[in-house]
């Protein structure tokens, strides 16, 4: 690009006033800004969360996408009907369902085995959206740890126990399907 190109717009730097040339306002400004933050931190208003001692505040736990759970109905049976919609929707292919004939009269199938590889999962929440009976949901549990890869494959019992652990703090989401959330 030539320097006489008409598309170049030449801009003059704004002239500094005398105070600006003497550097004093800028020097004072810099020091005051940092002093304000320093004083604020010394009063204890920091943004840091000391994690293991202090739990971070997560927004709406009903929206948060953490560890999965398998919901139970009023009779304590697993709500899942083994339709495989969640496994089909899953972009990470981390859901493994073994379907079997249902022992109960109100549905045809139920999951004999239901395993989620929590390490493969990308926590996108598409299984939750796909589920027609609101059986699989993502909870607000975020501190997921384990000592081996095998341990991080959650089976049906583990997922049902997550439901037992979180059902009071996080009610099921759609009232039309037996959920209690309002």
């Amino acid at each position, binding site marked *: 690009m030539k320097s006489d190109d008409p598309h170049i717009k030449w801009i003059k730097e704004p002239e500094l006033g005398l105070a600006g040339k*003497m550097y004093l306002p800028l020097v004072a400004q810099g020091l005051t800004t940092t002093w304000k933050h320093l004083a604020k931190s010394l009063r204890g208003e920091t943004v840091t969360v000391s994690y293991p001692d202090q739990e971070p505040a997560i927004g709406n736990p009903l929206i948060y996408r953490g560890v999965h759970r398998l919901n139970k109905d009023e009779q304590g049976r697993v709500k899942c009907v083994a339709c495989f919609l969640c496994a089909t929707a899953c972009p990470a292919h981390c859901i493994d369902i073994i379907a079997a004939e249902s022992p109960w009269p109100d549905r045809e199938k139920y999951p004999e085995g239901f395993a989620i590889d929590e390490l493969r999962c990308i926590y996108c929440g598409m299984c939750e959206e796909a589920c027609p009976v609101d059986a699989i949901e993502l909870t607000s549990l975020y501190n997921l740890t384990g000592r081996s890869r095998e341990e991080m494959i959650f089976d049906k019992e583990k997922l049902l126990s997550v439901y037992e652990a979180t059902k009071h703090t996080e009610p099921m989401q759609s009232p039309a399907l037996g959920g209690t959330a309002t």
Partner: protein
Amino acid sequence: MLEVLIKSAILIGGIMTAAAYFVLLERRMAAWVQDRIGPSRVGIPLTNIRLWGLGQPLADGLKMIFKEEYTPGHVDRRLYVLAPLAILASAIATYAVIPFGSLIPPIELGDYKSAGPIQLTVAPGVDVGMIYVFALSSVAVYGVILGGWASNNKYSFLGGLRSSAQLIAYELPMGLGILGVVLAAGSLNLETIVAAQAAHGWFALVQPLGFVVFVVAAFAEAARLPFDLPEAEQELIGGYHTEYSGMKLLLFLVAEFLHMITASFLIVILFLGGWHFPVITGDPDAETIGWLTAIARLAVLHTKIFFVIVFFMWVRWSWPRFRFDQLMNLAWKIMLPLGLVNFLAVAILEEVRHVHGPDESSLAWSLAIIAVAWAVFALAWLVVSVANPLVTDNRPRRDLSPGEIDSQI
């Protein structure tokens, strides 16, 4: 002999510990300015006692010691080892003449009896003290440039060159700042300079221009922001010590902190009155001294130094780094002339005071001298601001024809 050994042991132990804890303070200050908490968890090893993170320097030191000390291939091995040693040795040796207190009363310990009040300087009464400090601070440049050269790395070398240029450029204004003090105190001996301030008022009041020049130069000599071009973490990945690891890196980092502590000592001793504070530090001319006064003087000196260091750290997060051309312009076009003006003003004022002035202890006369000094300060600052030599317009000139402009670019 024994006295000197004990004093140097206390001093070296003290400044090394101080440097370690100032690293912690620096990290906490950085965190506070950025609305964080900072390192607050390491306390007593093997227990759960946290002590507000006071164990952090120990952990940092252990980490550095046990880290792999990797020597890159193709380095000049002798110079590579020599560089951190040179920089640390010169940084510590500076403290030989720097008073870290005033006097303490004579001590009797078993058979040993000291010959009089003990001066809290490792080598008391060195008449060329100031020159010695100045010479050793120049030796630090060798460490920097050797480190950059021996690393056999282009960026380290550029970092080393930049910092040696910077350190050499700022030694001039620093020297001019000191010259005014030396002229007014009539001695290069640091203890005498403090005594002169106790008698005639702190030099920061009497020579404000010299104070500003010296503080700016001290920031640059200690390579602290806004003059930390030698390191410039974001641009040079550490500059001259990029290729160093483990203990050798630790030596560089400690030396850098010692430079900052030295600079604070010098600012306090040369301009902020050293151990002197009105009323509480006793009669400055007295030959003997009680324990209470001795401790008060120690406390005053070290409190002042602490606050100067906190100021160093506060400034670090307040102002952005200078560009290299601005740095050089500031040194040669602003600080050097200001230093000369200060030197001239001090020379004239001292001459007037000694030759034409009335009784030296006259308060009105002293106040008049201070007023003139501040007027010189304001006027010089104003002239420099209006002349504005820092701004360089390096865009192509538009009044030239396109061909000429292209050849300029």
